[in-house]
Protein backbone atom coordinates (compact mmCIF):
# COMPACT_ATOMS: atom_id res chain seq x y z
CA UNK A 1 0.00 0.00 0.00
CA UNK A 2 1.26 3.42 -0.85
CA UNK A 3 2.04 6.38 1.34
CA UNK A 4 1.55 10.08 0.71
CA UNK A 5 4.47 12.41 0.05
CA UNK A 6 4.82 15.87 1.54
CA UNK A 7 7.39 18.15 -0.11
CA UNK A 8 8.41 21.37 1.64
CA UNK A 9 10.75 24.05 0.26
CA UNK A 10 12.66 21.67 -1.96
CA UNK A 11 15.61 23.25 -3.76
CA UNK A 12 18.04 21.38 -5.98
CA UNK A 13 21.21 22.28 -7.85
CA UNK A 14 23.38 20.76 -10.54
CA UNK A 15 26.71 22.44 -10.04
CA UNK A 16 25.76 26.12 -10.02
CA UNK A 17 22.47 25.66 -11.90
CA UNK A 18 19.49 26.05 -9.62
CA UNK A 19 17.28 23.36 -11.17
CA UNK A 20 14.50 23.29 -8.57
CA UNK A 21 13.32 26.36 -6.71
CA UNK A 22 11.13 26.25 -3.60
CA UNK A 23 8.90 23.34 -4.52
CA UNK A 24 5.98 22.73 -2.15
CA UNK A 25 3.35 20.11 -2.77
CA UNK A 26 1.46 17.16 -1.36
CA UNK A 27 1.27 13.96 -3.39
CA UNK A 28 -1.67 11.90 -2.10
CA UNK A 29 -1.33 8.20 -1.31
CA UNK A 30 -2.67 5.56 -3.71
CA UNK A 31 -3.25 8.00 -6.53
CA UNK A 32 -1.41 8.76 -9.74
CA UNK A 33 0.17 12.19 -9.97
CA UNK A 34 1.48 13.49 -13.29
CA UNK A 35 4.23 16.07 -13.75
CA UNK A 36 4.28 17.96 -17.02
CA UNK A 37 6.40 20.76 -18.44
CA UNK A 38 8.89 21.50 -21.22
CA UNK A 39 12.31 19.81 -21.40
CA UNK A 40 14.74 21.00 -18.77
CA UNK A 41 12.03 22.39 -16.48
CA UNK A 42 13.16 20.25 -13.53
CA UNK A 43 10.46 17.60 -13.41
CA UNK A 44 12.94 14.73 -13.78
CA UNK A 45 15.18 16.27 -11.14
CA UNK A 46 12.16 16.50 -8.85
CA UNK A 47 11.36 12.82 -9.28
CA UNK A 48 15.00 11.90 -8.70
CA UNK A 49 14.94 13.80 -5.42
CA UNK A 50 12.08 11.60 -4.22
CA UNK A 51 14.28 8.50 -4.08
CA UNK A 52 17.53 10.38 -3.48
CA UNK A 53 18.92 9.43 -6.88
CA UNK A 54 19.65 13.10 -7.49
CA UNK A 55 22.53 13.05 -5.04
CA UNK A 56 24.29 10.14 -6.81
CA UNK A 57 25.68 12.79 -9.16
CA UNK A 58 28.70 14.28 -7.37
CA UNK A 59 27.97 17.85 -8.45
CA UNK A 60 24.30 17.71 -7.42
CA UNK A 61 22.78 18.69 -4.11
CA UNK A 62 19.38 19.37 -2.63
CA UNK A 63 17.86 21.08 0.41
CA UNK A 64 14.39 20.99 1.91
CA UNK A 65 12.13 18.43 3.52
CA UNK A 66 10.49 15.44 1.85
CA UNK A 67 8.26 13.26 4.00
CA UNK A 68 6.95 9.86 2.94
CA UNK A 69 4.26 9.08 5.44
CA UNK A 70 5.99 9.99 8.72
CA UNK A 71 9.46 9.37 7.37
CA UNK A 72 11.72 12.35 6.56
CA UNK A 73 13.69 10.79 3.71
CA UNK A 74 16.71 13.08 4.06
CA UNK A 75 16.93 12.77 7.85
CA UNK A 76 15.46 9.52 9.12
CA UNK A 77 16.92 7.01 6.70
CA UNK A 78 19.82 6.22 4.40
CA UNK A 79 19.35 6.46 0.61
CA UNK A 80 19.52 2.66 0.45
CA UNK A 81 16.55 2.31 2.80
CA UNK A 82 14.57 4.92 0.87
CA UNK A 83 15.18 3.18 -2.44
CA UNK A 84 13.98 -0.13 -0.96
CA UNK A 85 10.63 1.58 -0.41
CA UNK A 86 10.46 3.60 -3.60
CA UNK A 87 10.44 1.88 -6.96
CA UNK A 88 11.65 3.66 -10.09
CA UNK A 89 11.08 3.11 -13.81
CA UNK A 90 13.38 4.96 -16.15
CA UNK A 91 12.86 6.57 -19.53
CA UNK A 92 14.72 3.86 -21.42
CA UNK A 93 14.13 0.25 -20.45
CA UNK A 94 17.22 -0.90 -18.55
CA UNK A 95 16.99 -4.69 -18.23
CA UNK A 96 20.00 -6.43 -16.74
CA UNK A 97 21.26 -8.18 -19.88
CA UNK A 98 23.13 -10.97 -18.10
CA UNK A 99 20.05 -12.08 -16.15
CA UNK A 100 17.06 -14.17 -17.17
CA UNK A 101 13.59 -12.61 -17.06
CA UNK A 102 12.96 -14.32 -13.72
CA UNK A 103 16.23 -13.05 -12.22
CA UNK A 104 15.58 -9.56 -13.56
CA UNK A 105 12.26 -9.37 -11.76
CA UNK A 106 13.56 -11.04 -8.62
CA UNK A 107 16.78 -9.00 -8.51
CA UNK A 108 15.51 -6.43 -6.00
CA UNK A 109 14.66 -9.19 -3.56
CA UNK A 110 17.67 -11.36 -4.26
CA UNK A 111 20.16 -8.56 -3.74
CA UNK A 112 18.59 -8.04 -0.34
CA UNK A 113 19.20 -11.67 0.52
CA UNK A 114 15.60 -12.86 0.21
CA UNK A 115 15.87 -16.65 -0.17
CA UNK A 116 12.38 -18.10 0.24
CA UNK A 117 11.88 -19.84 -3.13
CA UNK A 118 8.13 -20.18 -2.84
CA UNK A 119 7.54 -16.50 -2.08
CA UNK A 120 10.08 -15.52 -4.75
CA UNK A 121 8.18 -17.56 -7.35
CA UNK A 122 4.88 -16.07 -6.21
CA UNK A 123 6.27 -12.55 -6.24
CA UNK A 124 7.74 -12.88 -9.75
CA UNK A 125 4.41 -14.21 -11.03
CA UNK A 126 2.41 -11.53 -9.19
CA UNK A 127 4.62 -8.70 -10.48
CA UNK A 128 4.66 -9.93 -14.06
CA UNK A 129 0.86 -10.26 -13.94
CA UNK A 130 0.55 -6.73 -12.55
CA UNK A 131 2.78 -5.54 -15.38
CA UNK A 132 0.63 -7.44 -17.91
CA UNK A 133 3.62 -9.40 -19.15
CA UNK A 134 3.02 -12.81 -17.54
CA UNK A 135 1.15 -14.41 -20.44
CA UNK A 136 3.87 -13.42 -22.91
CA UNK A 137 6.88 -14.67 -20.96
CA UNK A 138 5.68 -17.39 -18.57
CA UNK A 139 7.08 -20.22 -20.73
CA UNK A 140 10.65 -19.00 -20.87
CA UNK A 141 11.06 -17.11 -17.61
CA UNK A 142 14.40 -18.70 -16.85
CA UNK A 143 15.48 -19.47 -20.40
CA UNK A 144 15.45 -16.05 -22.01
CA UNK A 145 17.60 -13.04 -21.16
CA UNK A 146 15.75 -9.91 -20.12
CA UNK A 147 17.41 -8.08 -23.01
CA UNK A 148 15.93 -10.46 -25.60
CA UNK A 149 12.44 -8.98 -25.16
CA UNK A 150 11.04 -6.21 -27.34
CA UNK A 151 11.30 -2.61 -26.13
CA UNK A 152 7.75 -2.48 -24.81
CA UNK A 153 8.12 -5.85 -23.10
CA UNK A 154 11.43 -4.76 -21.58
CA UNK A 155 9.78 -1.68 -20.10
CA UNK A 156 6.94 -3.76 -18.64
CA UNK A 157 9.56 -6.12 -17.22
CA UNK A 158 11.29 -3.14 -15.62
CA UNK A 159 7.95 -2.13 -14.12
CA UNK A 160 7.54 -5.69 -12.80
CA UNK A 161 11.06 -5.44 -11.35
CA UNK A 162 10.10 -2.26 -9.54
CA UNK A 163 6.83 -3.79 -8.30
CA UNK A 164 8.45 -7.00 -7.05
CA UNK A 165 9.76 -5.30 -3.92
CA UNK A 166 6.19 -4.16 -3.17
CA UNK A 167 7.14 -0.47 -3.04
CA UNK A 168 5.17 2.21 -1.26
CA UNK A 169 5.82 4.73 -4.03
CA UNK A 170 6.42 4.12 -7.73
CA UNK A 171 8.30 6.79 -9.70
CA UNK A 172 8.10 6.76 -13.47
CA UNK A 173 10.32 9.08 -15.49
CA UNK A 174 8.73 9.25 -18.95
CA UNK A 175 8.18 5.50 -18.94
CA UNK A 176 6.56 5.39 -22.37
CA UNK A 177 8.55 7.97 -24.31
CA UNK A 178 10.70 5.36 -26.08
CA UNK A 179 7.77 3.08 -26.91
CA UNK A 180 5.28 2.61 -29.72
CA UNK A 181 1.58 3.54 -29.24
CA UNK A 182 0.47 -0.04 -28.50
CA UNK A 183 3.08 -0.51 -25.78
CA UNK A 184 2.33 2.99 -24.52
CA UNK A 185 -1.35 2.23 -24.09
CA UNK A 186 -0.47 -1.01 -22.28
CA UNK A 187 1.71 0.94 -19.86
CA UNK A 188 -1.04 3.50 -19.34
CA UNK A 189 -3.57 0.74 -18.61
CA UNK A 190 -1.12 -0.63 -16.13
CA UNK A 191 -0.72 2.68 -14.33
CA UNK A 192 -4.48 2.93 -14.22
CA UNK A 193 -4.74 -0.52 -12.61
CA UNK A 194 -1.88 0.01 -10.18
CA UNK A 195 -2.74 3.40 -8.82
CA UNK A 196 -5.26 2.09 -6.29
CA UNK A 197 -2.46 0.16 -4.58
CA UNK A 198 0.60 2.36 -5.05
CA UNK A 199 1.40 6.03 -4.91
CA UNK A 200 2.49 6.72 -8.47
CA UNK A 201 4.41 9.78 -9.68
CA UNK A 202 4.77 9.93 -13.44
CA UNK A 203 6.77 12.42 -15.47
CA UNK A 204 5.48 12.77 -18.99
CA UNK A 205 5.87 14.88 -22.09
CA UNK A 206 2.58 13.65 -23.36
CA UNK A 207 -0.28 15.77 -22.00
CA UNK A 208 -2.98 13.35 -23.11
CA UNK A 209 -1.17 10.71 -21.13
CA UNK A 210 -1.28 12.86 -18.02
CA UNK A 211 -4.96 13.50 -18.60
CA UNK A 212 -5.70 9.80 -19.06
CA UNK A 213 -3.90 8.30 -16.06
CA UNK A 214 -3.51 10.89 -13.32
CA UNK A 215 -5.91 12.38 -10.75
CA UNK A 216 -3.57 15.28 -10.07
CA UNK A 217 -1.16 17.14 -12.29
CA UNK A 218 1.68 19.52 -11.58
CA UNK A 219 3.05 21.94 -14.16
CA UNK A 220 6.77 22.76 -13.95
CA UNK A 221 8.49 25.64 -15.73
CA UNK A 222 12.12 26.80 -15.39
CA UNK A 223 12.67 24.97 -12.12
CA UNK A 224 9.49 26.23 -10.45
CA UNK A 225 6.19 24.53 -9.93
CA UNK A 226 3.71 26.88 -11.54
CA UNK A 227 0.54 25.04 -10.69
CA UNK A 228 -0.60 21.88 -8.96
CA UNK A 229 -4.22 20.82 -9.03
CA UNK A 230 -6.63 18.10 -10.06
CA UNK A 231 -5.92 16.97 -13.60
CA UNK A 232 -9.41 18.00 -14.63
CA UNK A 233 -8.89 21.55 -13.41
CA UNK A 234 -5.41 21.87 -14.96
CA UNK A 235 -6.65 20.80 -18.38
CA UNK A 236 -9.99 22.59 -18.43
CA UNK A 237 -9.61 25.66 -16.30
CA UNK A 238 -6.01 26.35 -15.25
CA UNK A 239 -5.56 29.29 -12.91
CA UNK A 240 -2.16 30.35 -14.27
CA UNK A 241 -1.77 31.90 -17.71
CA UNK A 242 1.51 30.02 -18.33
CA UNK A 243 -0.18 26.65 -17.70
CA UNK A 244 -2.88 27.55 -20.16
CA UNK A 245 -0.33 28.59 -22.77
CA UNK A 246 1.55 25.33 -22.33
CA UNK A 247 -1.39 22.95 -22.51
CA UNK A 248 -2.85 24.74 -25.49
CA UNK A 249 0.48 24.43 -27.28
CA UNK A 250 1.34 28.12 -27.42
CA UNK A 251 4.90 27.34 -26.26
CA UNK A 252 7.08 24.40 -25.19
Amino acid at each position, binding site marked *: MGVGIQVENLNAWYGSTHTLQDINLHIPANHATALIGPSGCGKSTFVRCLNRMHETNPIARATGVIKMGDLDIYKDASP*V*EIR*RRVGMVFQRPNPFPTMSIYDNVASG*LKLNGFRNRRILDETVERSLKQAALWEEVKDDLKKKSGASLSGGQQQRMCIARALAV*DPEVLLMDEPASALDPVSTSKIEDLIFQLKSQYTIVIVTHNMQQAARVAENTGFFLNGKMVEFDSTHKIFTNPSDKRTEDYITGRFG
Partner: protein
Amino acid sequence: MQTSNLAPAVFVADPHAVQIRTVEPSPVRAFLNARGSGKLADGSFAAVMMLCACSIFAIVLFIFSILILRSKLSLVAFGWKFFTRQAWDPVSGDFGALPFIYGTLATSFLALLIAVPLALGVAVFLTELCPKPLRGPISFLTELLAAIPSVVYGLWAVFVLVPLMRDVLGPFLYKTLGWTGFFEGTNFGVGMLTAGIILAIMILPIISSLTRDIMTAVPNSQREGVLALGATRWEMIRIGVLRNSRIGIVGAIMLGLGRALGETMAVTMVIGNHPEINKSLFAPGYTLASVIANEFSEATGDLYLSALIEIGLALFLVTIVVNAIARLMVWAVTRGAPARVA
Protein backbone atom coordinates in the same frame (compact mmCIF):
# COMPACT_ATOMS: atom_id res chain seq x y z
CA MET B 1 -5.89 -15.16 -2.35
CA GLN B 2 -8.62 -15.50 0.26
CA THR B 3 -8.73 -18.86 1.94
CA SER B 4 -12.11 -20.06 3.13
CA ASN B 5 -11.36 -19.65 6.83
CA LEU B 6 -10.26 -16.04 6.30
CA ALA B 7 -13.18 -15.04 4.15
CA PRO B 8 -15.68 -14.28 6.92
CA ALA B 9 -13.20 -11.97 8.65
CA VAL B 10 -12.74 -9.84 5.57
CA PHE B 11 -16.07 -8.33 4.90
CA VAL B 12 -15.67 -5.64 2.32
CA ALA B 13 -18.57 -3.57 3.51
CA ASP B 14 -17.02 -3.27 6.94
CA PRO B 15 -14.50 -0.42 6.81
CA HIS B 16 -12.74 -1.60 9.95
CA ALA B 17 -11.97 -5.04 8.45
CA VAL B 18 -10.63 -3.50 5.25
CA GLN B 19 -8.32 -1.35 7.27
CA ILE B 20 -6.92 -4.35 9.10
CA ARG B 21 -6.00 -5.87 5.78
CA THR B 22 -4.22 -2.82 4.48
CA VAL B 23 -2.16 -2.23 7.60
CA GLU B 24 -0.64 -5.71 7.36
CA PRO B 25 2.43 -5.42 5.06
CA SER B 26 3.16 -8.21 2.60
CA PRO B 27 5.90 -10.70 3.55
CA VAL B 28 8.16 -9.10 0.97
CA ARG B 29 7.64 -5.60 2.35
CA ALA B 30 7.99 -6.80 5.93
CA PHE B 31 11.30 -8.46 5.06
CA LEU B 32 12.64 -5.37 3.31
CA ASN B 33 11.54 -3.02 6.08
CA ALA B 34 13.32 -5.22 8.62
CA ARG B 35 16.66 -4.91 6.86
CA GLY B 36 19.27 -2.53 8.25
CA SER B 37 20.57 0.55 6.51
CA GLY B 38 23.70 -1.22 5.32
CA LYS B 39 25.74 1.77 6.44
CA LEU B 40 28.28 -0.39 8.28
CA ALA B 41 28.65 -2.78 5.35
CA ASP B 42 28.98 0.08 2.86
CA GLY B 43 31.49 1.85 5.07
CA SER B 44 33.69 -1.20 5.55
CA PHE B 45 33.45 -2.02 1.86
CA ALA B 46 34.71 1.46 1.01
CA ALA B 47 37.50 1.14 3.57
CA VAL B 48 38.67 -2.21 2.19
CA MET B 49 38.67 -0.87 -1.36
CA MET B 50 40.63 2.16 -0.18
CA LEU B 51 43.16 -0.16 1.41
CA CYS B 52 43.53 -2.07 -1.86
CA ALA B 53 44.17 1.18 -3.70
CA CYS B 54 46.69 2.30 -1.09
CA SER B 55 48.62 -0.93 -1.45
CA ILE B 56 49.61 0.22 -4.95
CA PHE B 57 51.20 3.36 -3.54
CA ALA B 58 52.88 1.34 -0.82
CA ILE B 59 54.37 -1.16 -3.27
CA VAL B 60 55.67 1.54 -5.63
CA LEU B 61 57.16 3.49 -2.75
CA PHE B 62 58.75 0.37 -1.30
CA ILE B 63 60.39 -0.65 -4.58
CA PHE B 64 61.58 2.89 -5.27
CA SER B 65 63.11 3.31 -1.83
CA ILE B 66 64.92 -0.06 -1.99
CA LEU B 67 66.32 0.81 -5.42
CA ILE B 68 67.66 4.12 -4.12
CA LEU B 69 68.96 2.61 -0.90
CA ARG B 70 70.83 -0.22 -2.59
CA SER B 71 72.33 1.91 -5.35
CA LYS B 72 73.68 4.53 -2.93
CA LEU B 73 77.31 3.64 -3.62
CA SER B 74 77.00 4.25 -7.33
CA LEU B 75 74.73 7.27 -6.81
CA VAL B 76 77.43 8.87 -4.67
CA ALA B 77 80.27 7.89 -7.03
CA PHE B 78 78.72 9.14 -10.29
CA GLY B 79 75.85 11.41 -9.26
CA TRP B 80 73.29 12.38 -11.90
CA LYS B 81 75.97 11.93 -14.55
CA PHE B 82 75.43 8.16 -14.26
CA PHE B 83 72.47 8.51 -16.61
CA THR B 84 74.47 10.37 -19.27
CA ARG B 85 77.80 8.52 -19.15
CA GLN B 86 78.68 6.01 -21.81
CA ALA B 87 81.34 4.03 -19.97
CA TRP B 88 80.70 0.49 -18.74
CA ASP B 89 83.94 -0.96 -17.44
CA PRO B 90 83.53 -3.30 -14.46
CA VAL B 91 87.28 -3.94 -14.25
CA SER B 92 88.23 -0.34 -13.56
CA GLY B 93 84.94 0.41 -11.80
CA ASP B 94 83.67 2.97 -14.34
CA PHE B 95 79.92 2.87 -14.95
CA GLY B 96 77.29 4.78 -16.97
CA ALA B 97 73.77 3.96 -18.11
CA LEU B 98 73.35 5.84 -21.37
CA PRO B 99 74.03 2.97 -23.83
CA PHE B 100 71.49 0.85 -22.00
CA ILE B 101 68.87 3.60 -21.89
CA TYR B 102 69.45 4.13 -25.61
CA GLY B 103 69.17 0.40 -26.31
CA THR B 104 65.96 0.07 -24.32
CA LEU B 105 64.28 3.08 -25.91
CA ALA B 106 65.44 2.27 -29.44
CA THR B 107 64.33 -1.35 -29.40
CA SER B 108 61.00 -0.49 -27.74
CA PHE B 109 60.12 2.25 -30.20
CA LEU B 110 61.19 0.05 -33.08
CA ALA B 111 58.84 -2.58 -31.69
CA LEU B 112 55.99 -0.05 -31.47
CA LEU B 113 56.68 1.13 -35.01
CA ILE B 114 56.21 -2.39 -36.30
CA ALA B 115 53.54 -3.66 -33.90
CA VAL B 116 51.08 -0.76 -33.73
CA PRO B 117 50.01 -0.66 -37.40
CA LEU B 118 49.88 -4.44 -37.43
CA ALA B 119 47.83 -4.62 -34.23
CA LEU B 120 45.41 -1.92 -35.39
CA GLY B 121 45.00 -3.80 -38.65
CA VAL B 122 44.23 -7.01 -36.82
CA ALA B 123 41.74 -5.25 -34.55
CA VAL B 124 39.98 -3.41 -37.37
CA PHE B 125 39.76 -6.60 -39.39
CA LEU B 126 38.41 -8.58 -36.45
CA THR B 127 35.75 -6.07 -35.39
CA GLU B 128 34.65 -4.57 -38.69
CA LEU B 129 35.51 -6.79 -41.64
CA CYS B 130 36.04 -10.37 -40.55
CA PRO B 131 33.40 -12.97 -41.47
CA LYS B 132 31.87 -14.31 -38.24
CA PRO B 133 33.22 -17.90 -38.42
CA LEU B 134 36.82 -16.63 -38.70
CA ARG B 135 36.56 -14.19 -35.82
CA GLY B 136 36.88 -16.75 -33.05
CA PRO B 137 39.92 -18.62 -34.42
CA ILE B 138 41.86 -15.45 -35.23
CA SER B 139 41.14 -13.90 -31.82
CA PHE B 140 42.17 -17.16 -30.19
CA LEU B 141 45.45 -17.27 -32.13
CA THR B 142 46.39 -13.68 -31.28
CA GLU B 143 45.72 -14.36 -27.62
CA LEU B 144 47.75 -17.58 -27.85
CA LEU B 145 50.76 -15.49 -28.93
CA ALA B 146 50.55 -13.71 -25.58
CA ALA B 147 50.71 -16.99 -23.70
CA ILE B 148 54.06 -18.13 -25.16
CA PRO B 149 56.87 -17.68 -22.60
CA SER B 150 59.45 -15.11 -23.63
CA VAL B 151 62.37 -17.55 -23.51
CA VAL B 152 60.60 -19.58 -26.20
CA TYR B 153 60.36 -16.43 -28.32
CA GLY B 154 64.09 -16.00 -27.71
CA LEU B 155 64.86 -19.53 -28.89
CA TRP B 156 62.74 -19.09 -31.98
CA ALA B 157 64.46 -15.80 -32.70
CA VAL B 158 67.93 -17.34 -32.35
CA PHE B 159 67.16 -20.19 -34.73
CA VAL B 160 64.85 -18.49 -37.24
CA LEU B 161 64.93 -14.71 -37.00
CA VAL B 162 68.72 -14.31 -36.67
CA PRO B 163 69.61 -16.33 -39.81
CA LEU B 164 66.75 -14.66 -41.68
CA MET B 165 68.05 -11.25 -40.71
CA ARG B 166 71.64 -12.17 -41.57
CA ASP B 167 70.96 -13.74 -44.95
CA VAL B 168 67.79 -12.23 -46.38
CA LEU B 169 66.24 -9.26 -44.57
CA GLY B 170 69.52 -7.51 -43.67
CA PRO B 171 71.04 -7.47 -47.17
CA PHE B 172 67.69 -6.36 -48.60
CA LEU B 173 67.40 -3.45 -46.17
CA TYR B 174 71.04 -2.49 -46.78
CA LYS B 175 70.42 -2.38 -50.52
CA THR B 176 67.15 -0.42 -50.41
CA LEU B 177 67.45 1.77 -47.29
CA GLY B 178 71.20 1.75 -46.70
CA TRP B 179 71.43 5.45 -47.63
CA THR B 180 69.49 6.45 -44.48
CA GLY B 181 72.40 5.33 -42.30
CA PHE B 182 70.15 3.13 -40.19
CA PHE B 183 71.22 -0.05 -41.95
CA GLU B 184 75.01 0.02 -42.12
CA GLY B 185 78.03 -1.93 -40.99
CA THR B 186 78.56 -5.59 -40.49
CA ASN B 187 75.36 -7.51 -40.10
CA PHE B 188 75.73 -10.53 -37.81
CA GLY B 189 72.01 -11.14 -37.57
CA VAL B 190 71.98 -10.24 -33.88
CA GLY B 191 71.40 -6.59 -33.04
CA MET B 192 68.85 -3.91 -32.25
CA LEU B 193 66.69 -4.53 -35.31
CA THR B 194 66.32 -8.22 -34.51
CA ALA B 195 65.49 -7.36 -30.91
CA GLY B 196 62.94 -4.80 -32.08
CA ILE B 197 61.25 -7.31 -34.35
CA ILE B 198 61.00 -9.99 -31.68
CA LEU B 199 59.64 -7.38 -29.25
CA ALA B 200 57.07 -6.33 -31.85
CA ILE B 201 55.83 -9.90 -32.15
CA MET B 202 55.63 -10.16 -28.39
CA ILE B 203 53.60 -7.01 -27.83
CA LEU B 204 51.34 -7.50 -30.85
CA PRO B 205 48.76 -9.68 -29.05
CA ILE B 206 48.28 -7.40 -26.06
CA ILE B 207 47.79 -4.30 -28.22
CA SER B 208 45.52 -5.97 -30.74
CA SER B 209 43.29 -7.77 -28.26
CA LEU B 210 42.82 -4.67 -26.09
CA THR B 211 42.17 -2.52 -29.15
CA ARG B 212 39.64 -5.08 -30.38
CA ASP B 213 37.79 -5.00 -27.06
CA ILE B 214 37.71 -1.20 -27.10
CA MET B 215 36.43 -1.07 -30.67
CA THR B 216 33.77 -3.68 -29.97
CA ALA B 217 32.51 -1.45 -27.18
CA VAL B 218 31.74 1.40 -29.60
CA PRO B 219 27.94 1.41 -29.94
CA ASN B 220 26.52 0.43 -33.31
CA SER B 221 24.53 3.66 -33.46
CA GLN B 222 27.84 5.48 -34.00
CA ARG B 223 28.67 3.31 -37.01
CA GLU B 224 25.17 3.75 -38.42
CA GLY B 225 25.29 7.49 -37.86
CA VAL B 226 28.44 7.82 -39.97
CA LEU B 227 27.30 5.35 -42.65
CA ALA B 228 24.03 7.24 -43.01
CA LEU B 229 26.00 10.32 -43.99
CA GLY B 230 27.25 8.45 -47.04
CA ALA B 231 30.59 7.36 -45.64
CA THR B 232 32.53 4.48 -47.14
CA ARG B 233 33.49 1.59 -44.93
CA TRP B 234 36.98 3.01 -44.33
CA GLU B 235 35.57 6.46 -43.50
CA MET B 236 33.09 4.85 -41.14
CA ILE B 237 35.90 2.98 -39.37
CA ARG B 238 38.01 6.13 -39.17
CA ILE B 239 35.32 8.52 -37.89
CA GLY B 240 32.86 6.19 -36.23
CA VAL B 241 35.16 3.67 -34.63
CA LEU B 242 38.82 4.69 -34.40
CA ARG B 243 38.08 8.26 -33.39
CA ASN B 244 35.79 7.11 -30.60
CA SER B 245 38.30 4.61 -29.28
CA ARG B 246 41.46 6.67 -29.60
CA ILE B 247 42.07 7.10 -25.88
CA GLY B 248 41.62 3.41 -25.29
CA ILE B 249 43.95 2.61 -28.17
CA VAL B 250 46.66 4.85 -26.72
CA GLY B 251 46.18 3.03 -23.42
CA ALA B 252 46.61 -0.32 -25.19
CA ILE B 253 49.79 0.93 -26.89
CA MET B 254 51.12 2.11 -23.54
CA LEU B 255 50.58 -1.33 -22.03
CA GLY B 256 52.44 -2.84 -24.99
CA LEU B 257 55.24 -0.32 -24.60
CA GLY B 258 55.46 -1.11 -20.90
CA ARG B 259 55.99 -4.75 -21.74
CA ALA B 260 58.59 -3.91 -24.41
CA LEU B 261 60.60 -1.67 -22.07
CA GLY B 262 60.85 -4.33 -19.43
CA GLU B 263 61.16 -7.44 -21.60
CA THR B 264 64.39 -9.23 -20.73
CA MET B 265 64.90 -12.79 -21.83
CA ALA B 266 64.14 -12.79 -25.55
CA VAL B 267 65.94 -9.48 -26.04
CA THR B 268 69.03 -10.67 -24.21
CA MET B 269 69.25 -13.65 -26.54
CA VAL B 270 69.30 -11.66 -29.78
CA ILE B 271 70.50 -8.10 -29.12
CA GLY B 272 74.23 -8.87 -29.04
CA ASN B 273 74.85 -7.51 -25.55
CA HIS B 274 77.36 -4.83 -26.34
CA PRO B 275 77.04 -1.49 -24.50
CA GLU B 276 77.53 0.94 -27.34
CA ILE B 277 75.44 3.67 -28.95
CA ASN B 278 75.25 3.15 -32.66
CA LYS B 279 73.00 4.72 -35.26
CA SER B 280 72.91 1.56 -37.34
CA LEU B 281 70.17 -0.85 -36.29
CA PHE B 282 72.31 -3.79 -37.42
CA ALA B 283 74.79 -3.01 -34.63
CA PRO B 284 74.58 -4.97 -31.41
CA GLY B 285 73.25 -3.12 -28.39
CA TYR B 286 72.29 -3.69 -24.80
CA THR B 287 69.17 -2.89 -22.80
CA LEU B 288 68.68 -1.96 -19.16
CA ALA B 289 66.86 -5.18 -18.42
CA SER B 290 69.32 -7.41 -20.26
CA VAL B 291 72.37 -6.07 -18.51
CA ILE B 292 70.84 -6.73 -15.12
CA ALA B 293 69.88 -10.27 -16.09
CA ASN B 294 73.26 -10.99 -17.70
CA GLU B 295 75.64 -9.53 -15.17
CA PHE B 296 73.88 -9.64 -11.82
CA SER B 297 75.12 -13.13 -10.91
CA GLU B 298 78.72 -12.32 -11.75
CA ALA B 299 78.85 -8.81 -10.31
CA THR B 300 81.92 -8.76 -8.11
CA GLY B 301 82.48 -5.80 -5.90
CA ASP B 302 80.02 -3.50 -4.19
CA LEU B 303 80.24 -0.67 -6.70
CA TYR B 304 79.47 -3.01 -9.63
CA LEU B 305 76.41 -4.41 -7.81
CA SER B 306 75.34 -0.93 -6.83
CA ALA B 307 75.65 0.26 -10.43
CA LEU B 308 73.48 -2.61 -11.65
CA ILE B 309 70.81 -1.70 -9.11
CA GLU B 310 70.99 1.88 -10.31
CA ILE B 311 70.39 0.51 -13.81
CA GLY B 312 67.19 -0.90 -12.34
CA LEU B 313 66.36 2.54 -11.02
CA ALA B 314 67.01 3.96 -14.49
CA LEU B 315 64.58 1.43 -16.00
CA PHE B 316 61.98 2.44 -13.42
CA LEU B 317 62.44 6.13 -14.24
CA VAL B 318 62.41 5.57 -18.01
CA THR B 319 59.09 3.76 -17.70
CA ILE B 320 57.63 6.60 -15.63
CA VAL B 321 58.86 9.31 -18.00
CA VAL B 322 57.62 7.49 -21.10
CA ASN B 323 54.18 6.97 -19.54
CA ALA B 324 54.02 10.60 -18.46
CA ILE B 325 54.83 11.77 -21.98
CA ALA B 326 52.14 9.48 -23.37
CA ARG B 327 49.56 10.87 -20.93
CA LEU B 328 50.55 14.37 -21.94
CA MET B 329 50.07 13.49 -25.59
CA VAL B 330 46.59 12.08 -24.96
CA TRP B 331 45.71 15.17 -23.00
CA ALA B 332 46.99 17.46 -25.76
CA VAL B 333 45.04 15.62 -28.46
CA THR B 334 41.75 15.38 -26.61
CA ARG B 335 41.83 18.73 -24.86
CA GLY B 336 38.53 20.47 -25.26
CA ALA B 337 37.05 17.60 -27.26
CA PRO B 338 34.51 15.27 -25.70
CA ALA B 339 36.49 12.23 -24.71
CA ARG B 340 34.17 9.30 -25.18
CA VAL B 341 30.87 8.08 -26.50
CA ALA B 342 28.14 8.47 -23.92
